[in-house]
Structures are given as structure tokens and as C-alpha cells.
């Protein structure tokens, strides 16, 4: 009998896992609540350069291989002891193997004023429509302060606010408003980037772009009427337009036993095998798990490959490898690290920007036909392994 695998969530991780498994002959059911898959970095270009959202969205049914049983439904609860998944429609699924790839959920209510700020200005995290709302405000900001901040130091894609700062300062320059609008990047870190090694590389670039950086600024409350943001560290910032990255939490579903979730709702896994604690037939990949590495599409993709290999019977292990791109005007760099290796110094270059453009171009194909891209990605990740690049970096 073919093994029945249920995959929850058709984001980056879920699509790669489902498509790989079906090409190996598994009986795969994929559950996704939305009709469209969003290329999330695209929200930066929607919010800060006015791109059309359709460029970054594809119907989920066009991204799954024939043979994948795609269910449009919302996951409500999972019982790991009973091996069942309950859906909003009333359906119950059972499984031999379960892969949870539900991403993060956002909390706009823990920081007073945040929901109101988000409803007013939008942001570049929560969806294309919210990114469009932010673009409306950014593009009509003639003078004043554009504040980019975060409500918590732990959010997906650590360089996202840096990319937001680079893209918006470039846009404002093109519009001839560079001297009238100040872009302020307020970060909940000691340096301009969580890793000091990369901070040294990113800081001069931000300065060159004319971005004002404020460190040690974790948003505590927002006064939308008076346009002020207060930090936990006791400072305040005035703004004309602001986008605050929401607190990232684990997926909002009920799981039995409850003990597999940490206090923020992230699913506890073995960081190498990605097996959910205490269950060797359940995996959690990508943003929804508690692995001590950055939450990025690359991590979700690599995690999916590891889990599929394990289901196939190989002793594959997740290395915690990251490759977060930071794009600036015409150049880019990557934040490269793994469990075994702290972040190495990687300089900005035009070549890396070209690589990043190629990665973006390959995105849809790499979701639908991940097996075709495996060897290319493998070659790239081996070539840029932090140990191979060495302490001098890249």
C-alpha cells in the first residue's frame, strides 16, 4: 500500500515537499486555505516601488504537480496521538506521515496602537493588499519621516526591514524627495544587523543610501493620533508614515498534545531531523518550527528536501543553512550561516545581485519542479558553504 502523506500549507515548504513526494509515488494530500501563493519578498517591491501584486502571485493549483490531491480548506486542529487533522469544512484527514508547513501568524494586538497603525498604513509582511496600502502612503509622502520598525527581534527574514529601507530610499531619490523625506530604520538590535559581522558590511551601505539607523528600538506602543512610536528602551520616534513588523507567532491551530508548541506557538522539532518532539511520523518545516535559524524561504525549501529524504528512508539532516539576500541599489549580499558556523562576512556586489535576480526568476519553477532544481541548488549551497568560503568570507 502506498504511504499516505498529508502536507499542511502550500507555502514555500509545503509546495516543495508535496511536489517532491508525489514524484516519488506517494499518495499526497495538500491542504491550503488560500487560492493564491504569494512570493513574500515581492511585498517589498509592491510597498516601496509600486509593483503590481499579480507579478508575485500564482494560483496554488498551477503550482502543484498532477497527482497531488489539493484541498482548499483551513486546518483547525491536529491530533498527533490519533493521527488526524480536522478541517474547517468538517472533514477529517488521517495520515501515515504528516508534514506541517503552516508558516507564522501575526499578532497585531499585543502592541497598543499597532492594529490601528496597520489598518491605516498597511505593511510589507501581511499580504499584497496591505503592501499596496503602504505604497499609497509612501508614494504620496512629500516630506517628513518614514519610519520602518519592528515589534519584536524575532521575525521572519531578518534583513526584510533593511531591504525596505534600501528600496524606499531609492524610490524617494528617484522621485526627487530624498532631502525632504527621512527614512528611519529603527531596529530592536544592538547593531544595524543582528549579526555584528554583517552589521559592519550593511551599515556603510545604509549610510550611503542616506538611511538614518536607530538601534535598540523595540516598539512598545504606538500613538496613531499623535503619530508617535514608543520603544521598550524608553525612546520615542515621530513619524508621518510608519510600518511596524508585527510580532511573529506560530500557526494558530490547536495541536494535541499541546506540549509540542513553545510559548509563542512554534512547533518544537529536532533541529536536524525536523521531527516533531516525540513523534517520528510528524515533521514541521519552515517558519512554523522552532529551529534556531533564520525563518526564510531558503530554510523552508531545504527543510522540505530533508524531510522528503527522511520519508524516503535516507538519514538526511537539516544543517540550519541560511542564505538571506539583502538587496540594495543595484547590488546585493547574502547572510550566510549554518548551525555549525556563525555568520561569515559577505560583501555587497553586482554579481550577487545577479544571482539573486536568477533565484527570483527560478522561484515558481523551483516550487513546482523542485526535483529539477535540486542539483543546481546543491551545487550552489556546497560552493557557498561557510566552511568552504572561509573566515575571509565572500
Amino acid at each position, binding site marked *: 500500500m502506498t504511504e499516505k502523506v498529508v502536507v499542511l500549507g502550500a507555502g514555500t515548504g509545503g509546495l516543495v515537499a508535496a511536489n517532491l513526494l508525489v514524484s516519488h509515488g506517494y499518495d499526497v494530500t495538500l491542504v491550503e486555505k488560500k487560492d493564491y501563493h504569494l512570493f513574500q519578498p515581492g511585498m517589498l517591491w509592491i510597498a516601496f516601488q509600486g509593483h503590481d*501584486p499579480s507579478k508575485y502571485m500564482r494560483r496554488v493549483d498551477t503550482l502543484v504537480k498532477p497527482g497531488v490531491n489539493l484541498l482548499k480548506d483551513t486546518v483547525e486542529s491536529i491530533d498527533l496521538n490519533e493521527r488526524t487533522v480536522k478541517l474547517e469544512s468538517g472533514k477529517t484527514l488521517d495520515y501515515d506521515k504528516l508534514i506541517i508547513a503552516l508558516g507564522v501568524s501575526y499578532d497585531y494586538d499585543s502592541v497598543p496602537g499597532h492594529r490601528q497603525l496597520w489598518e491605516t498604513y498597511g505593511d510589507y509582511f501581511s499580504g499584497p493588499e496591505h503592501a499596496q496600502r503602504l505604497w499609497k502612503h509612501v508614494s504620496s509622502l512629500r516630506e517628513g519621516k518614514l519610519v520602518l520598525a519592528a515589534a519584536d527581534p524575532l521575525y521572519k527574514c531578518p534583513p526584510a526591514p533593511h531591504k525596505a529601507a534600501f528600496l524606499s530610499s531609492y524610490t524617494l531619490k528617484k522621485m526627487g524627495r530624498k532631502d525632504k523625506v527621512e527614512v528611519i530604520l529603527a531596529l530592536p538590535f544592538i547593531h544595524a544587523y543582528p549579526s555584528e559581522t554583517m552589521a559592519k558590511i550593511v551599515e556603510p551601505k545604509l549610510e550611503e543610501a542616506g538611511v538614518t539607523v536607530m538601534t535598540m528600538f523595540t516598539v512598545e506602543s504606538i500613538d496613531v493620533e499623535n503619530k508617535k512610536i514608543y520603544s521598550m528602551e524608553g525612546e520615542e520616534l515621530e513619524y508621518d508614515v510608519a510600518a511596524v513588523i508585527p510580532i511573529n507567532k506560530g500557526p494558530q491551530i490547536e495541536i494535541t498534545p499541546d506540549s509540542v508548541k513553545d510559548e509563542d506557538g512554534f512547533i518544537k522539532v529536532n533541529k536536524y531531523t525536523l521531527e516533531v518532539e516525540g513523534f517520528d511520523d510528524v515533521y514541521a518545516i519552515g517558519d512554523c518550527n522552532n529551529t534556531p535559524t533564520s525563518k526564510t524561504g531558503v530554510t523552508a525549501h531545504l527543510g522540505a528536501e530533508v524531510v522528503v529524504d527522511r520519508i524516503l528512508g535516507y538519514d538526511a539532516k537539516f544543517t540550519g543553512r541560511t542564505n538571506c539576500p539583502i538587496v540594495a541599489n543595484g547590488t546585493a549580499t547574502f547572510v550566510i550561516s549554518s548551525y555549525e558556523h556563525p555568520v561569515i562576512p559577505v560583501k555587497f556586489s553586482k554579481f*550577487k545581485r545577479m544571482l539573486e535576480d536568477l533565484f527570483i526568476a527560478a522561484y515558481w519553477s523551483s516550487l513546482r519542479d523542485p526535483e529539477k532544481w535540486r*542539483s*543546481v541548488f546543491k551545487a550552489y549551497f556546497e*560552493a557557498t558553504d561557510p566552511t568552504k*568560503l572561509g573566515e575571509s568570507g565572500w
Partner: protein
Amino acid sequence: MSERDPLAQLLTELENPEFQEALSKLLELVKNLEKSGLLDMLVAITEPEVINRIFDMVITTGTMKLGDSIEGLLNKLGDVAEALQEDVKPASLSELIASLKDPEVAKGLGRLIALLKALGK
């Protein structure tokens, strides 16, 4: 988001003169590739297995570092090309030794030594 019938979209495109011109050029290209036998080669090269081998060969730590230095190398090559245009007198051994005091020459020599070392590895 609006749904568009891909076939209808293609038909509208076909009516576009710009597209028609591009398409006829593309056909010309394909014919030329076929006549020269290059098309067979391209087909063979784009077989997934061959592609994989090519990527495996091309994507290495060395090429990734090289890619990054291309910008700098090209600028250097520009300087070299400019230097080659300059009128120079033949230099004597003593002039060569004297020129080592020039910081640019000394630095260039240092680079040359580093290069020789890398070649000898």
C-alpha cells in the same frame, strides 16, 4: 485578481505587429540553428542530466568568488589597456630597481607574487 484565458491572450498577442516581427526573427534563428547543426547540440546540452553536470562543474567556491571579483578585474583590465597605450622608453635594469620605490609598482609586484603563489598551490 482577474482571470484571463491564456489562449485568448495568445491570440491577441498574435495580432500585435511587434510580436509578429519578433516571432519571424525567432523562426529565422531556429532555421539557422538547424542548418548549422547547433540546434542538435543545444537540445543535447539542455537535457536535464547534462545541465546538472554543467551546473555542477560551473558552480564552485572558486567561480562564486571569481564572479564577485569580475567587476574589479574588468576595471583593472581597463587600467592595463590604458597603460598599454602609453608611450614608454625601454627600461634598463637599474631603472627597474629604482622603480621599486614607486608604491604602485611595489604593490603590483606584491600582487604578482601572490598570484604566483596561488598558481603554485
